[in-house]
């Protein structure tokens, strides 16, 4: 198993979704509220996993644009759950790299009245 094959298998494992079930209907991309911010679009996530191109997926901006709003998960007619795939890719990156997309230093520069829920959620995801 090559490194990228292993990474793709890990994504399937962490996300618990079966990318082979996807029929490329695009309902995820049609539902995604941050579609325009993403370089790799939700319906393309599965292709990257199926073609073992996790490196590109891991380098993608999309990892940090997904809101976890589950619109794609709710509406996917094939039960593929693209939101889980992108989260698994993000996990792979975070676990290997150790540091975060969001640094605590950035917070200190922000307004003071941030609700704890926002900070907790952001640090959990990023």
């Amino acid at each position, binding site marked *: 198993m090559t490194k990228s094959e292993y990474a793709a298998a890990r994504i399937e*494992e*962490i*996300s*618990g979704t079966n990318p082979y079930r996807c029929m490329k209907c695009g309902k995820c991309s049609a539902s995604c*509220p*941050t579609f325009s*911010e993403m370089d790799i679009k939700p319906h393309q996530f599965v292709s990257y996993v199926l073609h073992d191109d996790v490196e590109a997926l891991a380098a993608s901006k999309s990892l*940090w*644009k997904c*809101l*976890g*709003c*589950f*619109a794609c*998960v*709710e509406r996917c007619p094939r039960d593929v759950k693209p*939101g*889980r795939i992108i*989260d*698994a890719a993000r*996990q792979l990156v975070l676990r290997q790299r150790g540091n975060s*997309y*969001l640094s605590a230093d*950035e*917070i200190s520069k*922000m307004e003071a*009245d*941030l*609700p*704890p*829920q*926002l*900070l*907790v*959620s*952001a640090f*959990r*995801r*990023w």
Partner: protein
Amino acid sequence: MKFSYYPGCTLKNKARALDQYARACAGVLNIELEEPDNWQCCGGVYPLGRDETAKKLSAVRALQETKEKEQALVTLCSACHHVLKRVNDDMRHVPEIRDKANRYLELEPPYQGETKVLHFLEVLRDVVGFETLRKKVTHPLTGRRIGAYYGCLLLRPGKILQFDDPENPKILEDFIRAIGAEPVIYPYRNECCGAYLSLKDPALPAAMCEKIKGSAAGFGADLLVTSCPLCMYNLNRSETKDTLPVYYFTELLAEALGVKEDPAVSEKQEEGNP
């Protein structure tokens, strides 16, 4: 009826209003909210990775403690509701997570998802009943046109949360009717507010909230209600803050039940209301 009540991190400070108004209403509704002595933050987001167990433990502890008390676990915050229900579902249906969590916490007998998790709105609908609530209203909010803002975390994934129809919910609308106001149905009530993206790309949540509020206002809403502190934060940052105010649903409930002027509430509200 007595419930275990899990307030969550934000309800202790920035969203104190959400918490205090609910407590004020509880007595009128003959329900008792018992806060456990020692609860931990649920984490705000549900960890999606199937191999992530550690991040789910704080939720499991709360669920286990509630099980021992033989109560149902009630939340007010949409995020806590989401995390607790999903972790509970994992404990019920995913053996790997269940076994790992139980081994880690050394729970004997093991916790298997026995606790029932309810959002306060579900308590109003399924325990109190909206019809009973309507009868208890002393100061109906007649004439107010209210848009319900659900966001994501109350509704999705519908199969697990079992809260309401994720694409055409009606629990908040029924609530609004029960307190004497008129619900305004608009299409973006279940769209995301932009969540934590406001820390990195504030323009994006701002635009999303603008779309939501614009649509609600377009359908004639005078105000919005929510149960999520993060939604509240994002909605209030947008430019139309003053033209379309946003309230926690508990505040309107307290008003309708005539307990809003409770001094304990208003005092705390001053420091806490965002």
